């Protein structure tokens, strides 16, 4: 580490996931430069699409990137995390399938495909937001710790998802449904990349043209004070959970589309932990308050980068979690405030940080 880097640490928290990303890229570059190769190939449906590890990361990091948006807001406003997102993806996905397949487990066709899918997606959004509203009410109104409050849907969510379709696994017969989680014919870039881009643009516009960011941070930092400034902390917390619910619905669309069906017990399994990790990797305090949205989203892709890298090194999928944990420990420890403080001191003993000697 150089003096330069110490300075960067101060410059912005987005450097934390950025440095992690660069490190991961460097390791891959040294071990096997072909990691970065992107080649056009013809896929099963006969389309020419781009293929390569980087494309895989961009594609499969999408759900996580979208969830990171909502999780960042929930973390900032409530000072806690939603651990039910995986289960609520199952619920929203199940509801979506129910509409598309009309309650039949093996339909031969989807009537009025476009309208049906739009309706199904809207229903999924409503279901996702209802789940968020449920969590949000428990947290904001009844002041239950977020992790405990969301434990309810975490536990019950997958059962509810199965119950919606009578425990059957409907399969969407229309090949066009696979476009969301795959490729649209003629476009060589995964559709998920566009979906994420749209989500990012929307949240960027929301943060720019509303006070969501300011209010959320104010509530997370000092609830009492924000209340005396006319903000309604209960509503802001509630809102953050509802927004996360919307993110869940979008993630569910991608997840279900990838398979054209659903597996209640496996879909989006453990994704909540990765989403929380993305927020932490982004340098955001899990105790709430100030946040950097872009840093969280980047954090999500760092996690996917890591996962893909490990797969490439032929790490067994069972062992993946353990490897990931080791890397995560290193990343999180290095981004911890105390360690950063330590490095700051270590590399700038001559130029002391600008503490103020105010009496």
């Amino acid at each position: 580490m150089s003096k330069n880097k110490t300075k960067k640490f101060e410059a912005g928290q987005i450097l934390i996931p950025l440095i992690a990303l660069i490190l991961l890229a460097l390791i891959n570059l040294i071990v096997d430069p072909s990691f970065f190769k992107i080649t056009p190939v013809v896929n099963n449906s006969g389309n020419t699409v781009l293929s390569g590890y980087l494309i895989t990361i961009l594609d499969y990091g999408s759900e996580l990137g979208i969830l990171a948006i909502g999780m960042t807001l929930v973390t900032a406003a409530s000072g806690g995390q939603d651990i039910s997102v995986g289960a609520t993806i199952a619920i929203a996905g199940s509801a979506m399938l129910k509409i598309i397949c009309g309650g039949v487990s093996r339909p031969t066709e989807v009537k009025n495909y476009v309208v049906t899918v739009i309706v199904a997606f809207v229903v999924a959004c409503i279901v996702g937001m209802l789940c968020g509203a449920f969590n949000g009410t428990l947290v904001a109104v009844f002041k239950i710790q977020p992790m405990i409050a969301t434990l309810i849907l975490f536990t019950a969510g997958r059962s509810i998802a199965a119950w919606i379709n009578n425990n059957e696994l409907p399969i969407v017969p229309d090949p066009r449904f696979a476009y969301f989680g795959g490729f649209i014919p003629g476009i060589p870039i995964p559709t998920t990349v566009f979906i994420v881009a749209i989500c990012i643009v929307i949240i960027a516009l929301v943060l720019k043209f509303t006070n969501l960011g300011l209010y959320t941070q104010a509530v997370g930092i000092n609830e009492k004070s924000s209340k005396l400034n006319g903000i309604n902390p209960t509503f802001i917390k509630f809102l953050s959970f509802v927004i996360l619910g919307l993110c869940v619905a979008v993630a569910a669309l991608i997840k279900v589309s990838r398979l054209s069906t659903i597996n209640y017990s496996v879909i989006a399994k453990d994704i909540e932990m990765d989403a929380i990790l993305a927020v932490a990797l982004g340098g955001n305090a899990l105790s709430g308050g100030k946040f950097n949205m872009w840093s969280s989203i980047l954090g999500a892709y760092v996690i996917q980068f890591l996962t893909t890298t490990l797969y490439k090194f032929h790490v067994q999928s069972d062992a993946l979690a353990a490897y990931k944990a080791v890397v995560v420990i290193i990343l999180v420890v290095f981004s911890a405030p105390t360690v950063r403080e330590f490095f700051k001191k270590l590399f700038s003993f001559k130029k002391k940080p600008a503490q103020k000697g105010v009496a």
Partner: protein
Amino acid sequence: MDEKRVLEMRGIYKIFPAVKALQNVDFSLNKGEIHALMGENGAGKSTLIKVLTGVYEKDGGTIELQGEGMVNIHSPQDAQKLGISTVYQEITLCPNLTVAENMFIGRGKGLITNWKQMNAEADKLLKMLDIPASATQQLGSCSIAVQQMVAIARAVDMDCKVLILDEPTSSLDEQEVEKLFGLMRDLKEMGVGIIFVTHFLDQVYEVCDKITVLRDGQLVGEYDIADLPRVQLVAKMLGKEMDDLSDIKGEEGSYQGEDADKKIFEATGLQSDAGIHPFDFYIKKGEVNGFTGLLGSGRSECVRAIFGADKVLGGTVKMKGKEIKINKPLDAMKNGIAYLPEDRKVDGIIGDLSVRDNIIMALQVLTGFWKPFSKAKANAFADEYIKKLNIKTASADTPIKSLSGGNQQKVILARWLLMHPEYLILDEPTRGIDVGTKVDIQKLVLELAKEGMSVTFISSETDEMLRTCSRLIVMRDRKVVGELSGEDLTQNKIMSTIAGESAV
């Protein structure tokens, strides 16, 4: 070194990149002496204390301790080992442990604690120091003053030669302060040297033997208490001759508009869930009035009810003659009422946010969720008020929590002034801040009133209220018990009304 000396600091330098913290400061403390360290916010008091306790490393100068010779203090642990103990403004003990546990925590030898012996020792010490607490009592159940005394007892038991009390009295009421002073005098008898940091001038003259004054990181001088009358002390702290404080009311004059007699705000039978009796209240345009009474008499609860900060249970409220509903702070803000809360840290600042965001907060909320200010506009607002109120901050981007208390208070004040309220409520705006800023705030209040703003001003320091308010509402036991104005506005009259003797 003189035999009586316990501590001698010579030529202390401490340099931060942006701030000149300490330049060539001397400080000495004798055995059995209570020595006040005075100065405005930013004068270097805290820095000097932090150098002495090892929180900061000094950049120059020497520290000599009795019996130890020249010492280098690198950490608070070093300082403690050398017999330098500090009791801070905020209690740093654990309220859910017992008094004895708090006194001996972290000092046990080995893993095994002899509870009986520990409690006995603690009781002995408490008795010796005349502290009204028992060893096995939960600390949280003691009053703040007793908790502070326990913190002092802990320090004393660690064989301290130098005891630093950093603003110990700011959250205590008068009786509690007296108890604390009793303890300080006992310790003085025992030969402990005490460094006393406070903003309350009265208290300095009550217990201290000597005063050292700092200004802008430099030593102004060391004085015997008898040689330095109050006015001169203030003058030395400010670095200029003080215009007589009591005159500021006369200077400003009062609001002269046609509508000077119109009631801006009026409440009848207002009641909140904070346990105050229903009360009536009004304020005229351009008037400065105040609630007075002992701590806990319901002063703050009244203004909180006006602002809708507590849940309003009943009563009617009129703004400029029109009946309105105030159920939450936003309702009050929409009607042009602003409220600077009593507890700056808990209710006022949003610590991690920048000075700019803290300033624009109220107006931004009032403007609406869908209409955020542009960066340029927010900056312009912030810069305007940083300049106007002379807020000392590195930049508008600095997090507010890194500012000194007085400057934090100015930021909160800026927040509400930016809203251009018709009625401004200031609850203890001068608590815990330096004399200079106190005067600034009082002057500002009178200026605003002259321009036609109505202000309710609450302060624990009666003379401040006498200086600024033209009408005082007196409270006792959560009830309004009297109203004073004109000739009746005297210290004595207030006292007797509070005490309930010979009602007005």
